[in-house]
């Protein structure tokens, strides 16, 4: 992998304002979606745990804008942003969070199991690191079928301490598969600092030890994420085998929406808030000549859209109870029925 040094602050007047204004729109949509999902707890609309990605929007936007619709994406329990950026319908997603009819998965999965195969989103996952081996297999199938599509697998920093990380990366390298692994490092393994739980120099070094080209970048810099992803996907398309990105970002909320995250050092939170990816991108676009009105429109349009999504999802009916028995498996009757 060629090391790309593109950064927000370094771009200056050369910033591709068209591309990155669209990126700002995506990031605001994610921020608005997440904030409304969290707010919905007040009305008890979100039912189970949700894991907001507030503060991590640059990773979702910068990665997914480089993917074709038919490319495949696998995400984590903290996957709303990735799924939106891959093109899933926000209303269907919010309905899924609320467990309503018309949800992405018919209300059967909820936040941690959102998938939208129509846009190549093969699923969030409730088990840390479980998506890594599935991603390797999806890429394996693409290779067997001689397809040009590629796979991107995003996981958190906690995942690098689970066995499937080793097994999946090794597998992808041994079989030379078209998959980009992205460690979206938000510093926390649930409520514990990952640094305290991780031996050695970390994610990128582990990937490099298996022969994967790996790069560590500022995950709050969407220009850097965009450039590094574009470069890595080009390497996949050139048949150079699996690639690895380590994006350093920060989770601005607790592990779940109800976690106050009192275990964090306030100074650390302040430091990262000053590096908010949306604020930084807005500043760079302003310097590159994008109008205040357009920057403000990115924010207001996103919140207007998501307020409407929220209201519509809230007013949607529960799914038909018969759905509890559908799509279990073709063989056998899932009902325990009396013998007559």
């Amino acid at each position: 992998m060629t090391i790309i040094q593109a950064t927000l602050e370094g771009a200056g007047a050369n910033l591709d304002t068209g591309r990155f204004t669209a990126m700002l729109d995506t990031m605001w949509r994610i921020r608005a979606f997440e904030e409304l999902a969290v707010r919905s707890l007040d009305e008890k609309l979100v039912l189970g745990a949700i894991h907001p990605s507030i503060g991590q929007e640059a990773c979702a936007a910068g990665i997914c804008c480089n993917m074709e619709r038919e490319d495949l994406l696998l995400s984590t329990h903290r996957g709303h942003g990735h799924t939106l950026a891959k093109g899933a319908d926000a209303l269907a997603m919010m309905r899924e969070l609320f467990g309503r009819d018309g949800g992405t998965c018919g209300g059967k999965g909820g936040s941690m199991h959102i998938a939208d195969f129509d846009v190549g989103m093969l699923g969030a996952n409730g088990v840390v690191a479980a998506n890594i081996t599935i991603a390797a297999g999806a890429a394996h199938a693409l290779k067997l079928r001689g397809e040009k599509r590629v796979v991107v697998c995003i996981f958190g920093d906690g995942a690098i301490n689970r066995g499937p990380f080793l097994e999946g990366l090794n597998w992808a390298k041994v079989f030379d598969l078209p998959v980009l692994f992205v460690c979206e490092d938000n510093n926390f393994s649930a409520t514990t600092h990952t640094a305290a739980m991780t031996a050695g120099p970390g994610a990128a070094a582990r990937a490099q030890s298996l022969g994967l080209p790996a790069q560590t970048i500022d995950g709050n810099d969407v220009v850097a994420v965009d450039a590094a992803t574009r470069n890595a996907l080009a390497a996949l398309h050139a048949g150079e085998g699996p690639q690895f990105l380590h994006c350093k970002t920060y989770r601005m909320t607790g592990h779940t929406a109800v976690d106050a995250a009192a275990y964090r050092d306030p100074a650390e939170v302040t430091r990262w808030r000053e590096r908010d990816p949306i604020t930084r991108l807005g500043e760079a676009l302003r310097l590159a000549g994008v109008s205040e009105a357009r920057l403000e429109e990115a924010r207001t349009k996103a919140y207007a859209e998501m307020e409407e999504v929220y209201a519509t999802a809230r007013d949607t009916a529960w799914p038909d109870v018969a759905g509890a028995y559908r799509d279990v498996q073709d063989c056998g009757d899932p009902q325990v029925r009396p013998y007559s």
Partner: protein
Amino acid sequence: MSVISYLEAGKRAVREEMQRDPTVWALGEDLGRGGVFGQYKGLIDEFGPERIADTPISEACIMGAAVGAAMTGTRPIVEMRFSDFALCAIDELVNQAAKARFMFGGQMRVPMVVREPTGMWRSSAAQHSQSLESWYTHIPGLVVVAPATPADNLGLLKSAIRNDDPVVYLEHKNLWPLEGEVPEGEHLVPLGEAQIVRTGRDLTLVTWSATRHSCVAAADALEKQGIEAEVIDLRTLWPWDRDRVLASVEKTGRLIVAHEAVAVSGFGAEIAATVAEALHHRLKAPVQRLGAPRIPIAYAPPLEDEARVTEKKIIDAAKALCLPVAAS
């Protein structure tokens, strides 16, 4: 009809399905050299290393990769080497393969077969001998198959490969050399259909996998003592053929379920409970379960044998249930 071994029958099933459907492929450790028991021997020459894929010793990734590959337009056959090793991949099987179709709202299917050589094979000890089928029957989303004969291994494995949901396919290691007649040409055995191996009016013996053969031997011996046992090989444990079992017990009024697995929470408990719920008024004797004691399987033959459901144990249990019949 031709006579082939249980092992050859499994290989023939894989070969025929790979010839029929180019999306079928197999992955597992040492497959290029034929697999640990030789059940893939020669297939790499016909289908090449891409479709008979040698993998690292990475059970979690073998299973997880199969899930991803099944979601992406292929039909993987997973080889787990020993069923005991599948425990290294239980998240991938139970949390991922079994649930994906449901929790993603039916957007896709996970058509994969997980071959897990199972059961006691002389002196393989506690980590290479287990029969864990009841674990899998408990998991919504999984089909569970345990063939006992060459013909069934051929016909059920082919059906399993064609099934659109994940199938746990338990071949018994001790049966690999067992020979038997198999039909020429296409032979499919439907999933979920039990086989009445022999008919009888006094007692129903429900069984599967290698214990089928102990039950048949016991039934032959019982016949000489005036007890006619009906032997039913379930063949598929989920879905299991309730109708056939209940019809038989309705006729005989007596039931023994015999399996190699530990009796406690074994799948025999499900059958016994179902029969008790449905046919309590028809039973002439209490339902009996025969399974292993709740001990790990030992290495030394006399200790290992303590875990076996032998022909003698089945005969003794049957005679105890049928005393009035034998006396009459």
